[in-house]
């Protein structure tokens, strides 16, 4: 009863949704339209919304123009997956400590972690370059994975901590009373209960890493074979001409795998966030 809308309200809601979606999806629509236009007609003036010679040719040609395109798409996914794995390994124990244990400098060290959120890679590029260089990590996958992990740890701890706090303490106490060690309790009691939270944090970290590979890639990695998609796309800007239509086609194709995975996971994301990762 309470949720019933009048006809007028329904029209208003759907109209607002449509306006909202136009704003969100407009750039994708524009990229798609550009990818369909033959190159010689991209620059047609005056502006024509509809070209009479739309074709999917760019989706075939792009693999020839940039032979490594497939590799770039996989690199992007691979780098983000590695970042997610490493971040989770570091974040899970730390988040548990902040959610459950009492120890000296607890609040101070947590504040230090969260303080990292104030920096982005762009502020620290020069010294970061030197650190990575002295660790021998430049021009490798690690050059993009390691900084990615460092800047995502704070968000990971912050999200997972509030999720773990919601898990009833009694279960752990019971396990502890039965003589289980702290580590055993964490592994066998807490983590299985935290799976929805782990999925939320994992997805958030993956997206964070996937969205921000560009800067680290162009600064710390010169090896073409290791480049992620956003950096690789700029290869369509050639010496003589820019094959814009193929670039758009490659961009849309390249994000497709992750979009599909995300579409599958998104319901867990909203459910998990609702269940606890955000304090109400």
């Amino acid at each position, binding site marked *: 009863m309470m949720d019933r809308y009048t006809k007028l309200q329904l029209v208003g809601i759907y109209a607002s949704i449509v306006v909202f979606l136009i704003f969100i999806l407009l750039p994708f629509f*524009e990229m798609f339209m550009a990818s369909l236009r033959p190159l010689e007609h991209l620059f047609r003036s005056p502006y024509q*919304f509809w070209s009479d010679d739309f074709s999917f040719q760019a989706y075939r040609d792009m693999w020839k123009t940039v032979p490594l395109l497939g590799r770039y798409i996989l690199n992007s996914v691979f780098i983000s997956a590695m970042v997610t794995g490493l971040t989770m390994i570091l974040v899970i124990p730390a988040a548990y400590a902040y959610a459950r244990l009492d120890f000296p400098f607890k609040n101070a060290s947590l504040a230090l972690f969260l303080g990292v959120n104030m920096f*982005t890679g762009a*502020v620290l590029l020069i010294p*970061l370059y030197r650190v990575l260089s002295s660790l021998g990590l430049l021009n490798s996958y690690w050059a993009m994975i390691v900084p990615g992990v460092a800047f995502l740890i704070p968000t990971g701890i912050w999200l997972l901590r509030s999720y773990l706090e919601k898990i009833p303490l009694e279960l752990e106490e019971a396990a502890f009373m039965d003589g289980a060690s702290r580590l055993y309790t964490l592994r066998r009691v807490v983590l299985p209960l935290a799976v929805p939270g782990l999925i939320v944090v994992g997805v958030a970290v993956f997206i964070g890493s996937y969205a921000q590979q560009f800067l680290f890639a162009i600064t710390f990695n010169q090896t073409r074979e290791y480049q992620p*998609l956003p950096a690789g*796309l700029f290869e369509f800007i050639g010496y003589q001409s820019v094959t814009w239509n193929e*670039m758009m086609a490659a961009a849309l194709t390249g994000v497709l795998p992750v979009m599909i995975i995300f579409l599958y996971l998104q319901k867990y994301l909203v459910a998990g966030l609702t269940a606890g990762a*955000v*304090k109400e």
Partner: protein
Amino acid sequence: MVHQQQVKPRRTAPLHLSQGVFASLLIAPAMIFIAVIVAWPLIETFRLSFTDARLGGETYVGLENYQDLADSRKFRQTISRTFYWMFLSVSLKLILGLIGATLLNAAVPGRGLFRVLIMPPWVIPIAIGMIGWLWLYNGAFGLLSGALQYIDVVDKSFEFLAYKRSAFYSAVVADVWVGTPMVSLFFLAAMQGVSRDLYEAAWVDGASRWYRFRRITIPQIMPVIVSMALLSAIWTFNSFEVIWILTEGGPRSASTTLIVDTYKTAIANFKFGEGAARAVIIVILLAIFSLIYLFFLNKVNKHYGVK
């Protein structure tokens, strides 16, 4: 024998591990990682800011870099532009995020689809989204300029990124586009956490939708709004790829924020020392901003009865 040895240590020894030691062991890996990759470069940045480091080498110059910045009118403009950029973009993200979350939360058919369709700007690499906006903003063959011509707002093609003011606001719109989906999602999650009983009680009392939104939803999700605002403010302040790909800070510095200025100085012009001084100023400004904000956050949380 063997069996006993395997079981015994697990049952007794770890119990004696004090909470403090156990906690330090759990935190240490993450802490060390951050120390090497973030804290050390930060200290290095601080040191470099007192030198004239370039590609060739570096000598100590004291406060010269900071003195130059303090004397520069252009740099003061960049600071105020950055705060304006942050204020404008974050306000829009919060307002649109609130509207988006309310629409997503409305019990209408098709909201599952809407929830999916709102996500892409958040999920894809920022750099790729910006390629789309670059094309949209193009005067000769972009959709926006074409549409404006079609409805006769402009009589010839309009280059959004070619004029100082339009370039700045175009970058704001693109940045809002990147940030809004995530804000919406977090607000939605918070809204779904609000107890239904509250709404039902108000509904029985005849409270209108708008009243329920204003007096139940907003106060209940206020802590999330406030913490989202801070995070979003810091990210927006440091938003680099959006501006760099769209305008590289131009035309004539009209869209140069502090982070872009820092990158330009240090990476594009190889003035590492001068770049480091700018980086230190970013850190100080953000720290001051966050402290003031957290003070405010505490008050809000107290007001709404959150621990």
